[in-house]
C-alpha cells in the first residue's frame, strides 16, 4: 500500500519535472537549508543553526562592552565574504573603523551612513530593506526613551516583509531588548562575563549570548564564548 503510494507520487513528481523543469517541485526534506550569515563564532553558529538568518531582522541587545559591536563587525565581515553588500547605519555615532578592520571588515566595500536621529535611522533602514537586495544593514540604535520603543517596534514590523522579499538582513544593535524582540525574527541578549587576562594584561572578555526569540531556537538557550582583542594576539 505504502509502496504503491510512493510509486504514484514518484510518477507524478517526474511528470511535473518533465513539464515544468526540475526545480518546479521539491520534497520538503530535500529543501536547501535557509541561508544564514556566520557570526564567526562556531558555538554561536551552532546555537543558531548555522548563523544569523537571511531575510529577517536580528536584534543584538546588551549594555556597553557586551560584545554586540564586535559581533556586528564579524557578521558584516562574513556577509562581505559571502559577497553581500553591507551598509552601516551609525545611529550611535560610535563606528570605529580600526576596530572594524581588525575584525576583517573590508572598509573599501563598507558604506557608512550617519543618521540625524532615531526616526531618520529607522526611515533609512526601511528604505534599505527594499533597496539593498541580498545585503546586510547594520543599525546601531541610539539609547531609546520609553516613548520611542513602541514607535521603533512598529517601524521594525513594517520592515519585515520587504526584507523577506528582498532577501536582505537587518542587524540591530541596541541596549534594550524588551519591547523590540517581538518585532525581530531573532532576538539575542548579550551579557559580558569575566575579563580575560594574559600576563596580567586584559586581552578580552567572555560574553554570554542568550536567545530570547528565534524560529527553531528554543528561547533561553545560551552560549558563552571568548572575545579576544585582536591587538592582544
Amino acid at each position: 500500500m505504502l509502496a504503491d503510494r510512493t510509486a504514484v507520487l514518484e510518477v507524478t513528481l517526474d511528470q511535473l519535472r518533465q513539464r515544468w523543469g526540475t526545480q518546479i517541485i521539491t520534497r520538503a526534506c530535500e529543501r536547501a537549508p535557509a541561508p544564514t550569515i556566520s557570526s564567526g563564532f562556531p558555538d554561536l553558529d551552532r546555537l543558531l543553526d548555522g548563523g544569523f538568518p537571511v531575510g529577517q531582522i536580528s536584534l543584538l541587545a546588551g549594555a556597553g562592552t557586551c560584545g554586540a559591536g564586535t559581533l556586528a563587525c564579524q557578521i558584516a565581515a562574513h556577509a562581505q565574504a559571502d559577497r553581500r553588500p553591507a551598509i552601516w547605519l551609525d545611529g550611535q555615532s560610535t563606528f570605529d573603523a580600526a576596530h572594524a578592520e581588525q575584525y576583517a571588515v573590508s572598509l573599501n566595500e563598507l558604506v557608512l551612513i550617519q543618521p540625524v536621529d532615531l526616526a531618520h535611522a529607522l526611515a533609512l533602514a526601511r528604505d534599505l530593506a527594499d533597496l539593498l537586495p541580498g545585503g546586510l544593514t547594520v543599525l546601531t540604535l541610539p539609547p531609546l526613551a520609553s516613548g520611542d520603543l513602541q514607535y521603533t517596534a512598529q517601524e521594525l514590523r513594517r520592515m519585515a516583509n520587504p526584507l523577506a522579499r528582498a532577501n536582505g538582513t537587518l542587524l540591530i544593535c541596541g541596549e534594550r531588548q524588551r519591547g523590540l524582540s517581538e518585532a525581530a525574527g531573532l532576538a539575542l541578549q548579550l551579557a559580558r562575563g569575566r575579563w580575560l587576562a594574559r600576563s596580567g594584561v586584559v586581552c578580552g572578555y567572555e560574553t554570554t549570548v542568550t536567545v530570547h526569540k528565534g524560529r527553531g531556537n528554543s528561547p533561553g538557550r545560551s552560549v558563552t564564548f571568548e572575545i579576544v582583542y585582536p591587538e592582544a594576539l
Partner: protein
Amino acid sequence: MIGCLVIPYFAASVTRLARPELARTPLIFARETTPGAQVRAVSKEAYHQGVRPGQTLKAARGLCPTAEVLPLENSRWRAAHERLLDLLWQFSDRVEPDPDSAGAIAAAYYLDFGTLCQADTLKLCHQLQAEVQGELGLEGRIGLAGTKFAAQVAALTSRESVRAVAVRMERDFLASLPVRLLALDAEQSHRLVLLGIHTLGQLAALPRSAMLAQLGSNGPLLHDLASGIDSRPLVSKRQSWQVTALHEFEPPVDDRHILRATLEYLAGQLVEHLKADHLATRSVRLTLSLADGRTLADLRHPRQPVATAEALQKQLVALFKKQMVDERVSTIEICLGSLEPVMARQLSLFGEEEVQDAAAKAVEALQARHTGLAVYKVAAAAEATILPERRYRLEKIGAA
C-alpha cells in the same frame, strides 16, 4: 533495499585503534573526571557491568571499579566518522548517519541501495563489511530490509556479519522480537509492561487508533514500526566536500614554535590534496585538543578561495593566534570545507565590483529620497600615527 551498518561501541573501538593497550580494559568516556560528571560513551566490558551513557561517573565507577575513565576524544571520533562516511559513499550515493545513535553505544548508518536485487545487495554488503574491517579496523554488522527500522533491528540482533530480511516480510521478522528495540521512554516501557505487551508482534496486533491514547503522540509511529511499516525517509547527508588533517602530539606540547611549524606542515599536506583535485577552500576550521580535555575550535571564511600553502598558512596562523592556548596541546586538527573548483578569474571583473555596485545603487537611491544624507566611505589617513582611530578618515561620497 535499505542497509543499516551498525558499529557497536563505536567510541571505544576507535579509541582502541589508537591505543591497543586498552583492548581488554573497560572504558568509560566523560567530559570531566569529577564524580558528578556524566558518562558519554562506554566500551562493551563496561556496558556489561551495567554502565550506561547518562549515568554519573560516581555511579559508573561503583558498577565497574576496574574501568579506565578517559576524556572525550571528539576530534578522533569525528575523523573516524568522516573516514567511514567516505567509505560508505563508495557503495551508495544516499547515506544517512543515524543521529540518535551518535556512537555513545553503537553508531548506525543507513544506505539506500535503490532497486538493486537482493543477491547483488547482499554481495555488496559483504564487501562493505570486509572493507570497514580491513581499511578502518572497525567491526560492523549490516542489516538489510525494505525499511530503515527493520534493517537496523536486523543489524542489531544478528550474530552474522550481514543479515537480510526479505522485502515485505518485515512484519513477520519483527513479530517475535522484544519491544525494547523501539526507542521507548520510561513511561512508554512501563505502560507496555502493564498492558502485558512484550514483543513487537503483540504491539502490532493492537488497533493503531489506541496507540495515541496509550503511548502518546508518537504511539502511531511506534505501532507502524512494529508492524513493519516505516515511512521515515532516508535523509541523505550530502557528501561534504571537505579535507581534514590531524596531528597528535605524544606527549602534548606547549612550544608555540613547534605548534606553528606543525600547522605549516599540515597546511602543506592539505594544499597537496587540494592541488591534486584542482580545488580551493572557502572555509578553514582549526581545532586544538588540549591536554586537560578541553577543545578550542574556530572557523574562518577567507574572502578569496584559498588554494596555496602560503594563503592557507596565513589563515591558520590567524586562527591559532586567536585561541587562548593556556595548556599543552595534544591534537591539532584542520578541516577545509566549502571546497570548490579552482577557476581562472580576471581580477575585479566580477565579485567586489558587483557588491560595490549594489551598495552604490542603494546609496544613490537613498540620497535621492533623503536630501543632505551623510554617507561616508572609510579611507586611510595620509599621515602615519600610532593612535589606531586616527589611521582612518571618513570621506563623504555621492551627492551631498
